[in-house]
């Protein structure tokens, strides 16, 4: 087992400074929501202090300078974390592409994953926190299928799309979560168990030290890390002005591939990705599209064809595809009895063609049926 990575004290002091500057940057960045914080983070310590907290600059700087290496190391070890920086081993080279790359990267979990995390084998999946069941199902599938194909799925542990992408990836493998708070803090708190799973099976990254609380500005800041870490960023669902689009912009600026999952043009939740598609983003219908874009067309094939279906099940599947989301809707659309519709949906679910939410809402998966392909 490789030894625990180490970061140089200057880089660790920088992360401490960012934590101290939380409320000050919040005030400066609040004028221009979100997107300004990555620009601020480009500045060196002195300039950053001069912009964000001119009155207490000297005081804060002195406080951070006073931290010695042993103290910083103990703090990390106490929180079960480790760190790496551009001046040491394991720091992802891809981050160097960005002018505003984080100095130190604090991690928790399996650091060997960091060595594997090349842009060519990483995909960032982002999207709305308020996602529809369609978006969630797609995110989960993308996560699962990409992880199965050996791609590392990176996301932000937020509600909605992020969590589904992580969960999908964890079903079959590993995943990387980049946080806007210290890596030892589960945020949002409701995702504590997911956070723990990622710690055990994957990797948590952040540029903030353990114990740092999240601020509004830290989320766009972590978005820049997510965008830079991987070779492609996929937006699953996002409203027209969503934080996920910041990640998409940052990825595009870095020359990374940009993908978007198309949705209904009337759906507010799909406005963001639809706009990206109109602007030339790569269409992502399933994990195969991502693999083609990332590795070159046909480089790796995913078999998504499900078992053969009889006519009754094909009809039921067609009804779900046509927008019947409940058993009642399927029964009405096909003039079946309630029992017949129930049995058909149960079979489709078992075969993997549809999934059912705990509230009884059915969603089509991307599994292709044979007959459809033949037509």
């Amino acid at each position, binding site marked *: 087992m490789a030894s625990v990575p180490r970061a140089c004290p200057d880089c660790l002091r920088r992360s401490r400074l960012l934590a101290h500057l939380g409320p000050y940057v919040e005030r400066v960045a609040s004028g221009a929501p979100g997107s300004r914080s990555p620009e601020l983070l480009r500045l060196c310590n002195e300039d950053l202090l001069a912009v964000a907290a001119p009155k207490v600059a000297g005081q804060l700087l002195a406080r951070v300078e006073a931290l010695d290496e042993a103290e910083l190391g103990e703090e990390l070890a106490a929180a079960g974390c480790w760190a790496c920086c551009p001046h040491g081993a394991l720091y992802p080279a891809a981050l160097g592409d960005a002018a505003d790359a984080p100095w130190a990267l604090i991690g928790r979990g399996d650091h060997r994953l960091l060595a594997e995390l090349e842009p060519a084998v990483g995909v960032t999946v982002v999207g709305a926190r308020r996602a529809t069941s369609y978006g969630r199902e797609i995110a989960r599938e993308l996560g699962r299928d990409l992880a199965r194909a050996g791609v590392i799925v990176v996301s932000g542990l937020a*509600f909605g799309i992020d969590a589904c992408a992580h969960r999908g990836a964890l079903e079959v493998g590993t995943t990387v979560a980049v946080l806007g708070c210290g890596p030892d803090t589960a945020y949002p708190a409701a995702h504590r168990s997911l956070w723990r799973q990622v710690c055990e099976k994957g990797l948590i990254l952040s540029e903030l030290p353990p114990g740092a609380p999240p601020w509004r500005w830290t989320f766009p800041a972590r978005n820049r890390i997510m965008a830079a870490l991987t070779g492609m960023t996929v937006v699953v669902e996002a409203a027209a002005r969503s934080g996920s689009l910041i990640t998409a912009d940052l990825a595009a600026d870095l020359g990374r591939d940009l993908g978007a999952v198309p949705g209904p043009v009337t759906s507010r939740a799909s406005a963001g990705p639809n706009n990206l598609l109109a602007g030339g983003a790569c269409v992502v219908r399933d994990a195969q599209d991502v693999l083609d874009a990332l590795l070159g067309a046909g480089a790796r094939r995913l078999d998504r064809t499900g078992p053969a279906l009889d006519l009754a099940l094909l009809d039921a599947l067609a009804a779900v595809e046509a927008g019947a989301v409940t058993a009642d809707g399927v029964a*009405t659309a096909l003039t079946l009895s309630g029992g017949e519709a129930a049995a058909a949906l149960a*079979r489709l679910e*078992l075969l993997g063609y549809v999934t059912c939410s*705990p*509230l009884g809402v059915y969603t089509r998966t991307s599994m292709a049926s044979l007959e459809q392909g033949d037509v």
Partner: protein
Amino acid sequence: MQRNDLLRPTREIHLHSVVAVLAIARTFTLDGIAARPVRVEVDVHRGLPGFAIVGLPDAAVREARERVRAALVNCGFEFPLQRIVVNLAPASLRKAGPGLDLAIAAALLSASGQLEWEALPRVAMVGELALDGSTRAVHGALAIAEAAREDGAEAIALPAENGAEAALAEDIDVIPIDGLGRLRSLAAGEWEPRRPEALPLLLDAAAGAPDLADLRGQPHLRHALEVAAAGGHSVLMVGPPGAGKSLAASRVPSILPPLASAEALEVARVASACGRLGPSLPGGRPFRAPHHTISASGLVGGGSPPGPGEATLAHRGVLFLDELCEFRRDALEALRGPLEGGEVAIARAGARRVLPCRFMLVAAANPCPCGRGEADPDCTCAPVEVQRYQGRLSGALADRIDILTAVRQPSPAEIGGAPGEPSADVRARVIAARERQAQRLGPGRCNAEMTPAEARACSLNTAAAALLADLYARQRLSGRAHDRTLRLAQTIADLAGAESIGEEEMAQALQLRRRDRG
């Protein structure tokens, strides 16, 4: 008999300085939905005029003093200006309600020598007195009449309004009286009142009650309700407001089998104890839909003295919890035990009461706080809110729910379409399925009550077993969910008249079952 000998009507006690007369009457006080016997001992002796009631009376019993005094005087009796002590035995039992008035008055009349009534201790008496001496109806007459019979009373005298209700109890004379004045002729044996006609036990709802035909379209919802009724399974409907959840729930009693006469008597006993019996019995199975602001003790019973809650009022019927997510968590938690055991035990200082509550649970919930459902792009709920809201659906009570059905807003074509299948047809199938269950499990039992051992003993064909095993392996089903699916499949097979569970029935059960994880 020996007990009755001890209860001599009047006993004169001669001491050299005191002449006191003691009279005893027999009455009952309501405790939960059961009646407990109370002896009223009245002692009248010389001394400073006064009227004291002892023996744990509540406020209503204490106020009997004023009612009895006025009623006696207004009926032409004399209120003795002596020292009167009324003792209510057993002294440890808390006596509640105004039903003791009549017995206190009768014993007082006997003790003061105004009434020579040899048979007084053999006749039970209940009734509230008005100031003019007429009687007013009391709660729980049926339970009281039954308790009087158990206690060995030969007859029970009670207000005429309660006569028909009390006459439901067999093997006891029911004497309806309309006022205190009647006691005179009754004691003298000059008046032989007729036994009132007993209330007819209505095993079924009256014609014109809500019918399932009103539910148009929505085939899956109908199917889910039919399965629920056939196996006594609890069901949760999730869907937007106005989709017909409440309408569907109120039709569930109409597809349940009619009450057996013993069950109807249980329903009548509960209704009587709560004073909910009007001129006739409520027809058929009760349907209770408490508002979601109800407290835990309102739902399962409680208070001081402990009274029945909605769960008991829904005994042998349907308890409908609309807006399940809005109910207080402690109230739903409290419902958990009763739902499994079929009875609720209320322990309060002093006593523990067990009330029956064998009901079928029907619940409804919106998919999210705004009601539109997350799939609807107009839903404005924040993810945290939705998560918190749905989290309430996975609580301990939801764990007891067998069937989940997603209710959809019916299309205009469905609403304007032909009426659905009437309740009578659905009910015929439900009755047939219940008969099959009774043959297998024993009389009165249904599939929802199967023990895990019984559920696992259900006969499945190989295809059905393979289907269940497949799901069990793939979705990491809990043992409880596994058994629940088996129970549901058995009910669907019973409805279909199949000997064993086939693949089709199992597939339907897999779809209908409530999912565990969110």
